[in-house]
């Protein structure tokens, strides 16, 4: 009996959390139009979230693409259709690996930075100080970071996919000897614009999810050193779970 009650309570707790996040999202969206006027703030956050994540994204993209090239070649060779490697690698990267791996890396690289920055602002009372000065911290601090992440994510995912395709090409064509013309021409014949679209939609949704979780965790962090640490950890864990869950949903919706 007690167990059931505890279970129900934790379920209610989770629902309350979800509701609070959604309310926070509405607040951010409501504050966005006016925050958009401060282009300089948003551009700085695009730099923080996007440009600073570029190195890790490009390196990971290269290696993911190279692994796809190797594995795809091994698999396709069994059916005697190595030329389909370009198609296989591109569809895999554009639709699935690009958005998902980018989002996971983004949560680890930019999401944690956002959460700890905001958490530390909370812990050192900078956010309260802004409120005292009649500056809305949501509009001045939170929304630019949120929008920066939302804008940066699809761009990062696209860069990841392109580098990945060249990684697969490097291994498949240069090392394994797949015909270069077949690699590209079969890819162009088989990959449709809707595949690319799916990737863009996915990475945009992941961008909103990751940035939202990061700023929420940071903004509502318990104002202690431990609280900031916990907010950072939670950002990564929650983002990862939600990315993979949403990935399944979006993929199913696009079928």
């Amino acid at each position, binding site marked *: 009996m007690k167990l059931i009650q505890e279970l129900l309570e934790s379920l209610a707790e989770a629902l309350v959390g979800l509701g609070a996040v959604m309310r926070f999202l509405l607040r951010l969206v409501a504050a966005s139009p006016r925050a958009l006027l401060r282009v*300089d703030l948003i551009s700085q956050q695009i730099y923080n979230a996007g*440009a600073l994540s570029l190195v890790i994204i490009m390196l990971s993209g290269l290696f993911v693409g190279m692994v796809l090239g190797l594995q795809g070649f091994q698999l396709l060779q069994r059916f*005697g*259709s190595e030329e389909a490697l370009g198609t296989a690698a591109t569809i895999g990267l554009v639709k699935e690996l690009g958005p998902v791996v980018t989002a996971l890396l983004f949560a680890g690289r930019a999401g944690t930075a956002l959460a700890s920055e905001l958490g530390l602002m909370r812990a050192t009372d900078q956010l309260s100080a802004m409120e005292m000065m009649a500056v809305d911290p949501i509009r001045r601090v939170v929304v630019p970071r949120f929008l920066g992440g939302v804008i940066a994510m699809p761009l990062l995912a*696209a860069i990841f996919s392109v580098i990945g395709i060249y990684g697969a090409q490097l291994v498949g064509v240069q090392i394994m000897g797949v015909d270069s*013309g*077949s690699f590209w021409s079969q890819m162009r*014949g088989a990959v449709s*614009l809707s*595949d690319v679209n799916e990737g863009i939609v996915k990475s945009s949704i992941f961008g909103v999810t990751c940035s939202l979780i990061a700023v929420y965790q940071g903004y509502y962090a318990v104002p202690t050193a431990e609280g900031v640490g916990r907010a950072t950890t939670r950002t990564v864990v929650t983002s990862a779970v939600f990315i993979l869950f949403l990935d399944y949903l979006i993929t199913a919706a696009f079928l």
Partner: protein
Amino acid sequence: MRKSRTLDLGTGSFVLLGFAALFFLTTQTTSRGISLASPPHYDLTAKFDNIGDLKVGAPVSMSGVEMGRITKIAFDSKEYKAVVTMRIDARYNQIPTDSDAAIYTQGLLGGKFIGLTAGGAETYLKDKDQIDFTQSAFVLENLIGQVLANFTKSAGGQSDSGKSKADAPAVAEPKPTEKTK
């Protein structure tokens, strides 16, 4: 001021790179791409009854050595034939005029490519020349249809002679069944 300039530069180049990547994904991986400057070459054409799923960019080879690529596939509405334009590397400028071109498949499920077989003529193909002897793509459905048609025909004539007998006329006389269609 200077700090914000470098920052803007970083943001700007990141956004530019991102959009360049998006552009690449939407144009280069899906539709026909813009080909880069190519080494010296000459063009040949060939007309086929059926090219199957031959695609632009597929290789053209002779004796298994790649000599060029297919650059264009068009349709001749007078002869109802596919006109395939191929770009041959200028190194291989000694292809006899009576050579023939056939469409083959790479592996079991692979893409199609054109294989050239050298003829015996003393004169060689030049730019814009046409290869007259062609052999269409092997279309699996047609072949299965022919085998089935022959099989039912021979099974109707004789009672139950083994498979080997039913297979033999399918290969030996594919013409009559084609006409009955």
